């Protein structure tokens, strides 16, 4: 029959039309909440369904990537509150396809030697193409892709260059928006802390273990000293002593570096306040 094809098509349209409303009626007032919302967005959904943005928003998946942010230590962290995870190694700036990242490495005020910290960090979000390479290749898990996609502003010039202050977000934020990924990364690092902290802890633990061993060996040597092989036993003890001294030296150097870094931070902070 001529016209049958059109009727069939109209039937499909009508079915869609009805399905939209039956689903609305079936879920009633709960249609936008909880598992109802979920069902209507899933593969079982029928009918055409509209999300009333901005009143309602869809949850974005964990891996969703938008303009990056910098991870800083939580502000209530016991040891290093607000400390940057970034070490200013510059890999993100090199790998960035449209080259939208600028980093200025911090300098030691006294020795003028660079320290592993960003003095400044800028991302021009007008250029950023949200590819996620910076986060993918950062060896310190210090730059991550954000979920905040509402970046509209009334000024199109300087507000679109995000500085370090604007970019920095606490590590706990990253754990909230991407718990699975954060857990995977923590597992790869060997703990929830920054990789340097973990390394330092490990080193300290190893040094302590070594010191304990040396002490034990020395004690043993002392114990066996009256015995015939006194000369031979003295040699390892003598060797161990400088090694132990070495560890304390390293500790002192680390302490020194930390003090300098804090001084640099304080200086920078003062400068920021001056400028502000």
């Amino acid at each position, binding site marked *: 029959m001529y016209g049958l094809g059109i009727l069939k*098509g109209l039937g499909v349209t009508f079915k869609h039309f009805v399905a939209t409303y039956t689903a609305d009626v079936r879920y009633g007032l709960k249609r936008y909440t909880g598992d109802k919302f*979920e069902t209507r967005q899933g*593969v079982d959904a029928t009918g055409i369904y509209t999300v009333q943005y901005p009143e309602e928003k869809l949850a974005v998946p*964990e891996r969703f990537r938008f303009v990056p942010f910098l991870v800083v230590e939580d502000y209530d962290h016991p040891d290093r509150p607000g400390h940057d995870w970034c070490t200013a190694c510059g890999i993100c700036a090199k790998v960035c396809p449209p080259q939208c990242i600028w980093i200025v490495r911090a300098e030691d005020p006294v020795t003028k030697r660079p320290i592993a910290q960003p003095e400044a960090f800028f991302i021009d979000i007008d250029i950023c*193409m949200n590819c996620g390479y910076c986060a993918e290749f950062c060896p310190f898990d210090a730059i991550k892709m954000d*979920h905040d996609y509402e970046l509209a502003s009334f000024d199109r010039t300087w507000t679109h260059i995000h500085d370090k202050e604007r970019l920095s977000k606490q590590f706990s934020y990253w754990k909230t928006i991407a718990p699975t990924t954060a857990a995977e990364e923590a597992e790869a690092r060997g703990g929830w802390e920054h990789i340097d902290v973990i390394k330092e802890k490990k080193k300290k633990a190893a040094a302590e273990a070594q010191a304990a061993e040396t002490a034990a060996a020395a004690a043993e040597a002392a114990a066996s000293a009256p015995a015939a092989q006194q000369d031979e036993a003295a040699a390892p003890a003598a060797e161990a002593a400088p090694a132990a001294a070495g560890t304390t030296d390293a500790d002192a150097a680390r302490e020194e570096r930390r003090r300098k870094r804090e001084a640099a931070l304080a200086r920078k902070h003062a400068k920021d306040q001056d400028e502000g």
Partner: protein
Amino acid sequence: MTDQTSIAPQTVNAGDIKTAIEALKQQFPDWVQDDTRQGYSGVLVDRNHLVEVARTMRDQYGFDYLSSATAVDYLGVEDSMEMVYHAYRTSGGPALVFKAQTPREGAEIPSLIDVWPGADFQEREAYDLYGITFRGHPNLKRILLWEGFDGHPMRKDWKEPYYEEEHKPFDSRWPKGYVRRAEELNAFGKNVKYPADLDLSRLNDTSEEALYSGMGLGVDVEKLTADEKLKTDRLVVNLGPHHPSTHGVFRMIVTLNGETIESLEPVMGYLHRNHEQIGERNSWLANIPYTDRLDYISSMGNNHGYVLAVEQLLAMGNRYQAPTYRAEVIRVLMVELNRLVNHYWAIGFLLNDLGAFFTPSLYAIAEREKILDFFEAVAGSRMMCNYMRFQGVYKDLPERIRGVANLVNDQVRDFNTMDYLTELINERLPRSIDELDFFLTDSEIIKARTIGVGYLPPEMAIAYSCAGPLLRASGVPYDVRRADPYSIYPELDFDVAVRYHGDIYDRYLIRLDEMRESVRILKQILPRLERTQGEDFFAGNKSIYMPRVPLGEAYGRVENPKGELGYYVVSQGDPKGPQNPWRYHVRAPSFINLTPLGQMCKGQKVADVVAILGSIDIVLGETDR
């Protein structure tokens, strides 16, 4: 890929090419010789005898399909330019690669348009971007840039006004210097380094006159009336560049006699950004997100083609590890889902062009949405996926589609990934394809508008280097997945969809067929995904961000939803392995499929132009590059 640990060997007619090359060399001992440069393949042909040799290749050896023709500028390496051609047999098998070299000054190469008319647009592109003159080309005009543009931008010594540096990473951006907005950096009057010989007075656009010349305008009406009874004049209508049916900024200059089309000339380049030169400044890795932006409907396929091309180069070195089996499975999963996405889109918008305003499109888009949700959960972005990497993929599939609500959003949607995929592939997609079929195929209006319209005969489809659904709807069963297999396609069971009438209706039907075939492939992918759960998705060291790519050339081609997408990449320069491609060329199906548009529209009514263009299915991001 040479390392065959996880992939079935590709032996289709491989010996055949060698025999053909040997026979050619015997036949033309003076004109044809092997290309012996490190990492290169194929033959070098004396440019003065190129047409004869090419004709022999086509007629005697059966290389009837010219896939890609592009130029390379070897400034500083050999100080010459060359045209690189990839010819295939439509019966399948690998490429016969041949090249013709020319000095850079007064570069000239005979046109192959008589042998393969599909060389038309590609030679115009090479003329436009490289300044090679093609002797014998009937319509040698600029195609992407405007007439009057100064210079040929793909030449290695050409510098654009806002030229920054030859290669990324740019020193100017890091670590010193004050922070500037990109806009300020590129503002007029700042950082403008014009070439020394640039004369601004020469920059005048003469495109319009050039376009209308030869259109038979300015007809002497008095004279016409003497011959014809009806007082008539030809009318020129500009469809586009801003016309909803052109799917972007695309323009067709149509000469009408009444309502009948006498000639049609496509004008493109409104979205031209010299993608290939950007690609040559990027590092190898940094090009992957840029390929997303070519055909932005099917970014997974774009990634795949580029990654395959670079992997061919990497395989020449000794550090290369072939992608793991799981990586290949995930790639095929993504690419086939992407084909569905594209065909939903194409069918929906073809119906839009036919006047069924937005109802079919919205039904199609609603299904596409489910796939995009999956892409977003896996790759992090719905359209700009940036998912494939050399030797693997970015990340394994997540366990769940939606983890937890985040701070910005308050709603929770949580699905197990495999459940989601299984339901999508086994239930939702087949159902929706059937529904589209039921909804549209029998409609009398669609039949009346499409059957017999925009006919493209198979010989012409091959000659014009058409690819994808356009070629197969004309009765040529040529599909790269079968003709020149890659990835794990050899072990998958699917048919190459073919239709024989070559009109709009068949191009619509073949997309439905291909969607069904894709679902068939996906159903075979699911058990493979289950089986390889937990295996590595990346081979080698994933933290390498500046891979050293061995010297040589490679051509990676995939069957993208719109047709054969090819990437011709050359690694040249630094002997340790350069950080940037020397040449990065995209053989864009949307661009080359437009070559026969004028022929297809001739004699049709003006209302059909829009439908014919819609049935080719172009994306301007890829056409204009």
